[in-house]
């Protein structure tokens, strides 16, 4: 299978986006991308290097550059980035409504919750969102042991959202260290739209 993308006239990052789209539909064969400037070719090369693709970059003229990507089914290479994208489960939302995990001793509850958030970072699949409300918002504010782990999740593309009313109530609005602020409408909408809700 051979496929051609004419990305002349497109500005970065569109040539790269079009190429990534095409790559997702191909398992073998050759993909040729034509661009009209060297910078776009260099951005394609960076992508190909990061995805460990077999490629060749060719300068045809001052206004025409081409990259050929060779895919072989046997290798089945996917980049770490693509891999990561596939690791997000769109319909899955984690809802944390307390700083403690489970009923019982609060010290134990805190230790368990820290362990839970850490374990989320280690799983093969990530939720699309982590919603924090009531005392759960304390996990995302100054002094929490879970800031680093939540940050790690955010960097993997997981949305971390704390309830604004709750931050206000606990006077923690200024101390939020990771993720954004949300409201009841968004909480209700997200949970309604979720296919799976995980509550520790």
């Amino acid at each position: 299978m051979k496929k051609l993308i004419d990305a002349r006239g497109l500005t970065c990052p569109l040539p790269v986006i079009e190429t990534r789209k095409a790559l997702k539909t191909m398992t073998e064969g050759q993909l040729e991308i034509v661009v009209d400037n060297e910078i776009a070719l260099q951005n394609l090369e960076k992508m190909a290097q990061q995805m460990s693709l077999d490629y060749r970059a060719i300068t045809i003229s001052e206004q025409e550059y081409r990259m050929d990507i060779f895919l072989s089914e046997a290798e089945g290479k996917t980049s770490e980035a693509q891999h990561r994208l596939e690791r997000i489960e769109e319909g899955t939302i984690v809802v944390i409504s307390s700083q403690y995990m489970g009923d019982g001793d609060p010290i134990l509850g805190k230790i368990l919750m820290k362990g839970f958030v850490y374990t989320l970072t280690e799983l093969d699949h990530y939720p699309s969102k982590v919603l924090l409300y009531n005392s759960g918002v304390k996990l995302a504010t100054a002094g929490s042991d879970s800031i680093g782990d939540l940050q790690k999740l955010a960097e993997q593309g997981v949305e971390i959202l704390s309830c604004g009313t709750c931050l206000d109530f606990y006077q923690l609005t200024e101390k939020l260290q990771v993720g954004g602020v949300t409201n009841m409408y968004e909480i209700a909408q997200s949970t309604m739209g979720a296919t799976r809700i995980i509550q520790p």
Partner: protein
Amino acid sequence: MEDPNFLVGFDHGDDGAVYKLTEDLALVQTLDFFPPMVEDPYVFGQIAAANALSDIYAMGGEPKTALNIVCFPDAMDLDILGQMLLGGHAKVTEAGAVLAGGHSITDVDVKYGLSVTGVVHPKKVLTNLGCKPGDVLILTKPLGVGIITTADRVGEASSRAMEEAIRSMTTLNKYAAEILQKFPLHACTDVTGFGFLGHLHEMLNQEVTAIIDSSQVPHIPEALAYAEEFLITAAAQRNRNHLRKFVDFKGGVPFNMEELLFDPQTSGGLLVSLPASYGEEVVTQLEALGLACGIVGHIVEKAEKEIVVE
């Protein structure tokens, strides 16, 4: 013949021009304009003005007057123009300066910016040169607004990431400058189109070396995720091409961090170099302003590479 009152020009890539009028008064002038990177015209006006005013703060000055520079298509709704100018006016007013007029022309695309004039004491001019071994480098705003606005243009940015980018871009560097001026700064610049590494390179002037701790670089978290999705810009690649010979990325610095450090910023933060003993106090005060900031590295004697990223 060079005029002796012309104190700072563009030969070292400084942020603005400084001209001495009297022994205790100098003019600082700057100009910047560009096409929109956000959809809301009012917000774009705010960003364009915050960006133009920033050069005055980076020189240690105080803005006094500003003039609009506008390119606007004939066929476009004039309300958009009005909103844009209102946004610009709001930021000029917040800066304590006067919007004194401007000039507009018809063009195929929208572009907006300002020429800003400020004042500074000739002995208190801050330039981008003067980093000394033993200094720490402090950045007052998070990096990543270029990657995030690019991702937004292709519909891939989360609203949270965009809000944070806009909050950062519309924040005047005035407040950070007021804090920084209380300390003995060796060098100061603002991070804009050449990206963090580009503006750092201008500061170092191949006289000293900077060691950057990439784990400490303030950034908008989603920017790293988007860079990993290759939502990358042409401008960042141009910065990379220009700077690669000056930069040594140590093993373990991932690709997305490299992209973040090359990412062109609009209305970026101030980058300053000052003795290490003041570092923590400065950061504590800056943190109270509510934007991500931090000590991003330190200066050592000139080494083989001008910039080492760890």
